[in-house]
């Protein structure tokens, strides 16, 4: 059954080969502080792009601007062909977002939360869709429990279930396996891979989990102090830095940031 939202809003402006996401010279300044500095990258449809960097590198700020929650000081974000500063309501129903740092209402049950968000996204056949994502993410036993009573790992999966309700064409994930045990995290990654293979969705992933980045991302944007310092496939970056894992690459870049700050 097609549970995606009905195309109620204005027709989407999508010329043929438009990337799912195009970021051009994106900059965010807070007074003298530049949180994101002249960032440019694109995510073709059906790909997964990873945003990598240490704390304060600008990943969450970038994600917020991609979603239109935060207005850039300069630059441009185009999602599915739409300008996310001026025209984001045309595409918000076709994208979704999950972060362990943004809560769902804690006193509502998981099912109530999913129902409310399903309605907000205009999901058709909402009860069936809730059952479907709950099965896929193994949260069925949690559906009638209060969200605030769940463990961190359970909340992470519920937030991901919320993000999958509208079968998004672009999925923005901030640490999607935070607080999950290795087995559950592995199954969640498998779910995301299957979902992408089935729907051709584009995923933008901010994560500190290097194994996750190596597994899921075809393109990695390395960030430091708000700037893109490198970019490439995980394999290409590992070779370029003469390392054996992305974790070692990450440490090289993070330590360079600390030296810069010192």
């Amino acid at each position, binding site marked *: 059954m097609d549970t995606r939202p009905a195309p109620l*809003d204005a027709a989407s402006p999508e010329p043929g080969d438009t990337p799912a996401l195009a970021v051009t010279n994106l900059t965010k300044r807070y007074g003298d502080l530049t949180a994101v500095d002249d960032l440019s990258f694109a995510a073709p449809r059906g790909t997964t792009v990873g945003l990598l960097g240490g704390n304060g590198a600008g990943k969450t700020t970038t994600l917020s601007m991609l979603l239109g929650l935060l207005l850039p000081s300069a630059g441009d974000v185009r999602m599915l062909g739409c300008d996310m500063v001026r025209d984001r309501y045309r595409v918000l129903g076709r994208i*979704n977002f999950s972060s362990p740092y943004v*809560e*769902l*209402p804690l006193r509502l049950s998981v099912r109530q939360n999913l129902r409310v*968000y399903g309605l907000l996204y205009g999901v058709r056949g909402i009860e069936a869709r809730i059952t479907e994502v709950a099965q896929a993410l193994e949260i069925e036993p949690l559906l009638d429990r209060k969200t605030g009573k769940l463990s961190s790992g359970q909340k992470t999966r519920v937030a991901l279930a919320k993000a999958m309700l509208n079968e998004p064409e672009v999925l923005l994930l901030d640490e999607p396996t935070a607080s999950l045990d290795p087995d559950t995290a592995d199954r969640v990654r498998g779910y995301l891979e299957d979902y992408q293979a089935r729907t051709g969705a584009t995923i933008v992933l901010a994560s500190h989990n290097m194994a996750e980045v190596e597994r899921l991302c075809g393109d990695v944007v390395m960030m430091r102090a708000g700037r893109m310092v490198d970019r490439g496939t995980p394999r290409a970056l590992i070779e370029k830095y003469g390392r054996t894992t992305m974790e070692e690459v990450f440490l090289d870049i993070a330590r360079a940031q600390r030296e810069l700050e010192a």
Partner: protein
Amino acid sequence: MSALADSSVRRIGAQVLRYWYLLRGSWPRFVELAYWPTVQMIMWGFITIFFTTHSSWIAQAFGVLLAGVLLWDTLFRAQLGLSVSFLEEMWSRNLGQVFVTPLRPWEFLASLMTMSIIRTLIGVLPAMLLAIPLYGYSVFDMGLPLIAFFVNLMVTGWAVGLFVISLILRWGLGAESLAWFVIFGLAPISCVYYPIATLPDWLQYVALAIPSAPVFEGMRGVMLDGVFRTDLFFLAAALNVFYLALGSAVFLWTFHQARRRGLLLQMGE
């Protein structure tokens, strides 16, 4: 209904459902809604009974005082209902989730206003009904004018609520207490229990610049003189349109500033 309007109604309904789940799942919230209006009504009822035995003027004004209490609580509940529904989003750090859905800011405001109506009715209706067996007084005897007063006071409450939630959006939960007390600042110039003419001349102009004063003056006109003052009604309605538009504009501007400053993801306790 067009598809666009239909989707707006659905999204507003979704937000109302979210607040309703919260309200339904918490009996203390229900009790709190009905508690103060009932307590106020009882307290003022007995005060009024006391005065009726000591003053001939007050003896004529039994219903006026009681109706004033009940309608003042309508204004207070309308403001609080809107503000608290917004605070629920802040307390649960949910604004970042809500505003990445297709929900427009004006739809969000419409859902807050809908919940304000629901919360106000839950709050004041029991007190209005309880006044009948306790004091033999029914505010419903005012008839159709009661609807005009009720609607005007609801809108005034929303306008005040919009300014309050704008301040909370800008300053965070440190400004939360505004939701609980700011409306009381309007009480003296709303002239709930006394005519506008009681105020000093200069303050009368101030009173006539806020919508609640002509509403309560109009209420006394109905109850004491049996006349529905359309001039006061239209004054209150026009002021309400002005303040509601201003409050909405302030909220939308604050929302834009929150997007500029990155506040939507940081809100919470």
